[in-house]
């Protein structure tokens, strides 16, 4: 029997509702419909009054969650797509994320962002916004790449006392399968070496972890052993794991699906060079999406984001120095 990444998200929410009466889920179409991606299917019936449909009001959805959190709840807010959280940007970065610093009262909310591209989804249903939310103080930003992480990190996110931006990748929802959700359980904030190697380190997260592993598989045929680090949490970044890997390999490629200016890959590279310059044998490189909106057409989309091919190409170049 196999479970998918979205099953894990569903299961995590089921267990959270079961085990903690202060948890509730609020979002568009999450109640009887079970959400656009069925992440809450059946939960409104199982936990009456705790899984509720919201109006199309992303700003107020986050505001409501903040207020409820002040009063002791642990809300999970489902954005229908990460892209629509742009409407809630102010409440997330200025209301939720500043609250603890300003008042000393923490805001334990989890904002689920169905993120990342899939073929044909276009500019407004494909965005990866982790680098936007991570830029603000007061947020924790997680990007699970495995079925087990989808489960454990969601459970752990809700347990944390601060606002967590939970970036779940839509492409992984049904594509990524595992035998069980009981995989490894690492804490939030810790990266993981998903594939060991010695010639170069690829730091990736979310769906790009799998593209990186594929690229590593291909290069293996040429005798290259590529280490793949799954960041898991992009804020805060686990520099210990990243630096230890770079210390072993001397070469670094940071791969992300988000837009190329700034973002996770820039933060990773600039921290590695600041803290581990002497570990590097070659110029550390980045690979991100192209600097345009995410295109609709599958052919354009495939050329817009990093792929095993483009990762291989970047790695070959990196290995040539």
């Amino acid at each position: 029997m196999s479970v998918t990444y979205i099953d894990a998200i569903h299961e995590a929410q089921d267990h959270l509702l079961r085990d903690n009466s202060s948890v509730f889920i609020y979002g568009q179409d999450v109640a009887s419909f079970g959400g656009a991606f069925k992440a809450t299917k059946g939960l409104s019936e199982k936990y009456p009054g705790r899984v509720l449909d919201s109006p199309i009001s992303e700003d107020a959805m986050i505001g409501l969650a903040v207020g409820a959190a002040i009063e002791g709840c642990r809300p999970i807010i489902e954005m229908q797509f990460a892209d629509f959280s742009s409407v809630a940007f102010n409440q997330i970065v200025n209301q939720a994320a500043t609250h603890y610093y300003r008042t000393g009262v923490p805001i334990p909310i989890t904002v689920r962002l169905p993120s990342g591209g899939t073929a044909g989804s276009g500019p407004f249903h494909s965005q990866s916004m982790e680098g936007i939310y991570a830029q603000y103080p007061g947020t924790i930003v997680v990007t699970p790449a495995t079925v087990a992480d989808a489960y454990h990190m969601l459970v752990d996110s809700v347990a944390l006392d601060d606002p967590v931006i939970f970036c779940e990748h839509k492409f992984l929802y049904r594509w990524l399968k595992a035998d069980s959700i009981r995989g490894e359980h690492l804490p939030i904030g810790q990266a993981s070496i998903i594939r060991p190697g010695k010639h170069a380190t690829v730091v990736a997260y979310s769906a790009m972890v799998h593209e990186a592993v594929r690229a590593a598989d291909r290069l293996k045929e040429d005798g290259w052993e590529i280490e793949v680090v799954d960041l898991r949490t992009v804020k805060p970044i686990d520099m210990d794991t990243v630096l230890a890997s770079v210390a072993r390999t001397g070469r670094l490629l940071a791969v992300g699906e988000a837009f190329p200016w700034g973002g996770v890959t820039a933060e990773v590279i600039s921290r590695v060079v600041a803290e581990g310059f002497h570990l590097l044998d070659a110029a550390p490189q980045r690979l991100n999406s192209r600097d345009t909106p995410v295109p609709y057409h599958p052919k354009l989309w495939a050329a817009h984001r990093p792929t095993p091919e483009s990762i291989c190409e970047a790695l070959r170049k990196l290995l040539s120095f």
Partner: protein
Amino acid sequence: MQPTESSQANDQATQNKASQPSWATSENEFLCSVFHSMLQARILENKLSSLYKAGKIVGGVYLGKGQEAVSASLGASLIRDVDYFAPLIRDQAGRTAFGEDLLDCTRTYLGSAQGPMRGRDGNIHRGRPTEGMPAMISHLGAQLSVLAGMLFAKRLQGSLEGRVGATCIGDGATSTGAFHEGLNMAAVEKLPLVVVVANNQFAYSTPNSRQFACNDLIERARGYGIGGFSVDGTDLLSCASVITEAVRRARSGKGPQMVVAHLLRLSGHGEHDDGSYVPDHVRAGHYGRDCIEIAMRQLVEMGAATPEQIMGWQESIAADVQRAVAQAQQEAGPDPYREDWSALSTQFPLPIRAQATTQPQDAIEPTTPFA
């Protein structure tokens, strides 16, 4: 049928009876043209649905089934090259009535590089912004202020007179801050904006009861200080009459007008959705009527068209649709290797000083205009 109106000044319907719609002289012709657009939309969308189910369309397919009378009435009330129309996800009929080329639709859905979006955006996100038809972004409510801005520009340029801008929006989208800000701003500027709220009872799966707490969204018009009309969206005659009147009022300088059309979406939210959350009694109720069937009956009864004529329209539309699909299907998609992959029209680096239009040409020393 007279439009019912709740204006800002007075709720009494008697005082605000609509004057004769402007299309009265050629009423039958107008109704037939609206109906023709409805029919074309329905036939085209049925085709899109089949293509989607056959796996020929990548991404979502969103249909306006059941909303054609409202949408086409609005599109047909507008004047191409004068007015602006910002269609939303269920506005194939309005697009057709406003004059959008069938090929714009099929090319966009099928990813032809020759469509207006060149494969960069898809399905209902298409538009031709410099031809009066903005290309919607997905974020609901966001088009209201854009439309307001287009009209605002015309006022600045001294050519607003006689022009209107119109858009459709769903019941769910009225809950967005963007809807509120945009409509209020248009009201403050007294712009000729017509907003038709297609209240199809649901926003995706969410019923009206979880979306707003007033009895009828038209009760919002007064709070914005704008004209308000409520209409049965399944009834072509009512839609044509009320919507034309709302457009006429906006055009004649009476400021924004809001029309709330009551109806039911007769398809799923998108073609991936079976809409099974719509209760049977709602489907079986008044708003579950198919506006196309009703319109057909109305037109035949009033002698505006014969069943044979309508059959003829159907056939020629089907042929048109077939052609537009075939053409789009044989066209190439975009070539990633030939794309310039730039989101900017500006090319950097800029030549030194060449990019400025305004230079301090005079000897006027900068003054400090405030203490």
